[in-house]
């Protein structure tokens, strides 16, 4: 099934490490894509790995992968980008942890979770940005929220396709 029935810490740790690597690779890949016309808007592909990690290994694993992504943003894009990523990631991790149980109870699919996470990521990012720069960045909020609805739906569809296949990883003989 979808979660670990085993207490194998090393297996879980290896999986978290692997997903963290995937997450960073996706972040890098996203950096190479042509930038969206709105500053700060990103596709959020890395969120696929974070949500998968949270689904397979629980909230602690998901948080670890999310924080790896923030560390990666710090190394590649500097401190201010990392701070904004941190603001967004904390909020989106929180909402993902809250909503994933609803997916297990078939009330939501990953589309709902991803859209909520993307929206929260935008809100967190904008809150950090308005604290760091000026409240003028709030004027970007509508278009950023629209983009996160679309990108959240896309990453959610990817997760809906991917997670049933990934459940092979949670099988432990």
């Amino acid at each position, binding site marked *: 099934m979808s979660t670990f029935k085993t207490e194998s810490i090393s297996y879980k740790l290896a999986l978290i490490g692997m997903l963290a690597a995937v997450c960073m690779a996706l972040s890098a890949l996203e950096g190479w894509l042509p930038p969206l016309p709105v500053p700060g808007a990103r596709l959020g592909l890395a969120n696929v790995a974070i949500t998968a990690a949270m689904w397979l290994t629980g909230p602690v694993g998901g948080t670890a992968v999310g924080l790896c992504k923030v560390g990666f943003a710090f190394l590649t894009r500097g401190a201010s980008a990392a701070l904004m990523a941190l603001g967004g990631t904390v909020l989106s991790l929180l909402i993902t942890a809250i909503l994933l149980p609803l997916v297990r109870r078939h009330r939501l699919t990953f*589309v709902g979770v991803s859209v909520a996470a993307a929206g929260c990521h935008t*809100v967190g990012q904008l809150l950090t940005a308005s604290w760091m*720069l*000026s409240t003028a960045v*709030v004027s970007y909020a509508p278009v950023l*929220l629209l983009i*996160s609805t679309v990108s959240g739906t896309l990453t959610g569809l990817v997760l809906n396709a991917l997670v049933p296949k990934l459940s092979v990883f949670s099988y432990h003989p």
Partner: protein
Amino acid sequence: MTKGRWFCRGDLIPIALCLAAAIAVCVWCTCRAQGQELCVTTPTEERVYALTDHREETIVGNNGLKLTLVIEDGAAYVHQADCPDQVCVHTGRLTRSGDSAACLPAGVVLTVRGEKDAAAPDAVAR
């Protein structure tokens, strides 16, 4: 498992909330009063320009850093700045009362005020 399920009715709730938030912020942004004047604070002085002006100004801040400020069509923006981070340039157009941009290396702050804001301190009586 979610096998075979691409979408369910519950997913519409986060989507609707996101869109509602976008609309709410949009409404809130347009409801704020159009700014009347731009207050430029540098380490040495404070200058006020009317936003209705059409002008280009060069502001010199700390460390000799220069900012090119453009005011046109009721909006002000920093067109060019010497500093490395370019935060004030990326802040974009300031139009509404309360909008602000800052260049920390140069110690320059731009704030848009409405007429009411400017008059407010005069109206305080104790």
